[in-house]
């Protein structure tokens, strides 16, 4: 707050140096915003083992033998892209799980286009998640599987688990996944039908606008001032850039699925009431018997804890774990808390509940 000096010249020098530092920080800030090179993301070694339409199922390759024979299937939301789970080396849930000896698979929805505007929950769960889970289990030669869903992906994972028994879903992890919409939060009574009938395919710009509007100052101003502060402190902006890339990398939302998301879940809370019907079968959370881990961020305004914790009572699992961390929606999978606390917690929880390979030392990686 103060500048000290033995003479007025020294004080003047110090003031000039501070001004220069600010100018340099501002120059770098503009540079990053305008000309910063694209940060490479999703760098973990992988192969594509299944695809349908734009969906792809990645199998992550390990350099060491797997310790656990139960594969881990990751499913992401329809907003933004799946590389949030494998952002950059050192900040990747996928990398952490692979290094801990798990056989990891990730379903990437791809980018929905105009021809996908009629894609519904039914199609997503029955025609994409179901065959992808089956492929993952076949590839891993395992009769059971662990499913981890982040955000909306956790909601889909719960729907899938409630419907299908084979391969056996041994563990279900819902990361910041809204399930109980008794309190819909900030998603108020927008007319979903009017919106979808007009747009058909909800454009990515609208999705971006909608998510930023949940935290207007933080999204439009705060995020950039955080970058400036980082640069002024001469800290690396690499992670900020990776996160900003992901946050602004929205995808179009299929209209029919958007209608179901907004009307059936946020406005009518059909999931916990057992009123969602997929492929002629009712989705009842009570049918979920897998071991359950739900993680929420106390500062999460997208999937607040009150949309996660109450849903656990509807599931029949005997082994239920609910954890809260002082993070926001992205902080559950990114940042220091995620890296140092949440990743290891997930891996430990899974390790206790997964089948170990008969002889991990002699068993070659399954690829």
């Amino acid at each position, binding site marked *: 707050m103060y500048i000290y000096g*033995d003479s007025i010249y020294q004080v003047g020098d110090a003031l000039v140096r501070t*001004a220069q530092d600010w100018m340099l920080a501002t120059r770098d800030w503009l540079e990053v915003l305008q000309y910063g090179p694209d940060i490479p993301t999703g760098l973990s070694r992988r192969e594509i083992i299944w695809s349908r339409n734009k969906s792809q199922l990645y199998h992550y390759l390990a350099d060491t033998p797997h310790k656990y024979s139960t594969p881990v299937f990751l499913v992401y939301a329809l907003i933004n892209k799946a590389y949030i789970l494998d952002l950059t080396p050192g900040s990747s849930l996928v990398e952490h799980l692979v290094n801990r000896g798990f056989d990891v698979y990730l379903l990437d929805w791809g980018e929905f286009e105009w021809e996908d505007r009629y894609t519904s929950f039914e199609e997503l769960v029955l*025609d994409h998640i179901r065959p992808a889970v089956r492929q993952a289990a076949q590839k891993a030669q395992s009769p059971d599987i662990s499913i981890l869903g982040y955000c909306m992906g956790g909601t889909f994972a719960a729907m899938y688990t409630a419907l299908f028994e084979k391969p056996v879903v041994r563990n279900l992890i819902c990361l910041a996944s809204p399930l109980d919409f008794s309190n819909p939060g*900030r998603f108020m009574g927008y*007319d979903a039908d*009017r919106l979808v009938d007009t747009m058909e395919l909800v454009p990515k710009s609208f999705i971006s606008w909608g998510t930023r509007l949940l935290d*207007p100052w933080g999204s439009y101003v*705060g995020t950039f001032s955080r970058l400036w502060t980082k640069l002024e402190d001469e800290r690396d902006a690499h992670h900020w850039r990776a996160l900003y890339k992901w946050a602004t990398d929205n995808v179009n939302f299929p209209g029919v699925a958007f209608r179901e998301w907004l009307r059936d879940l946020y406005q009518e809370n059909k999931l916990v009431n057992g009123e969602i019907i997929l492929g002629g079968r009712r989705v009842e959370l009570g049918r979920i018997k897998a071991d359950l881990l739900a993680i929420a961020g106390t500062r999460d305004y997208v999937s607040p804890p009150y949309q996660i914790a109450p849903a656990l009572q509807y599931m029949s699992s005997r082994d239920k774990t609910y954890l809260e961390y002082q993070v926001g929606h992205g902080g559950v999978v990114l940042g220091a808390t995620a890296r140092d606390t949440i990743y290891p917690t997930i891996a430990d929880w899974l390790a206790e509940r997964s089948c170990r390979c008969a002889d991990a030392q002699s068993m070659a990686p399954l690829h």
Partner: protein
Amino acid sequence: MNSELSRNHSTFKVINPFKVWEKLYLSGENAITQASRNFVSTTFFGQAAELMLNRYLQIVRMQSAFVYNVLEDWPFPTKRDIARLARMNISLERKVDLLQLELEDQEHLEQYGCDDARRDNALIRPETNGADMNLIIAALQDIASRIDNLENLVQTHNQILMESRAWSGKAPGLLGLVAEESRPGEDGSLDPAESITILMADLDEQL
């Protein structure tokens, strides 16, 4: 330590306006962020946003209807036409996938004598709702009470038979009765055929 010493021995101490502004801004930003979050949670904001959204949708609807109607008569494919083509492609891919699945199941059937897909379908839990469950529970309770009655009846008859056998020096019980069905009525014991007739009449009554 050195810097503290130099601070203590410094002649001049001037407020750094840059740092003051930075501190003020950053502390203010948290308050503004919270205030803006609270504001977007209000009903007023929700209603205003809905109003704006509806006007925007109205314009988009008019615009797309106009463009679609104009382009429909022009010799250019619209995005709907292209999407239709893409959709056909996706359907074809799905069909190939289903065929592949069928072949895999066939292969599985030949190898293990079990159709994977059928086994999948068999494992899908049947559709039930609360009302169905209540009916099932009531039926199960009815069956359980009938079984209890039958057990009581069998025990009663067994007791009678054992007493009658004991009177005649033999006590094989109901199981013994069935085993000895081939030689009825010896040494004055109860006629097994007669016992079974009585038993069946009681069972009919119970059922």
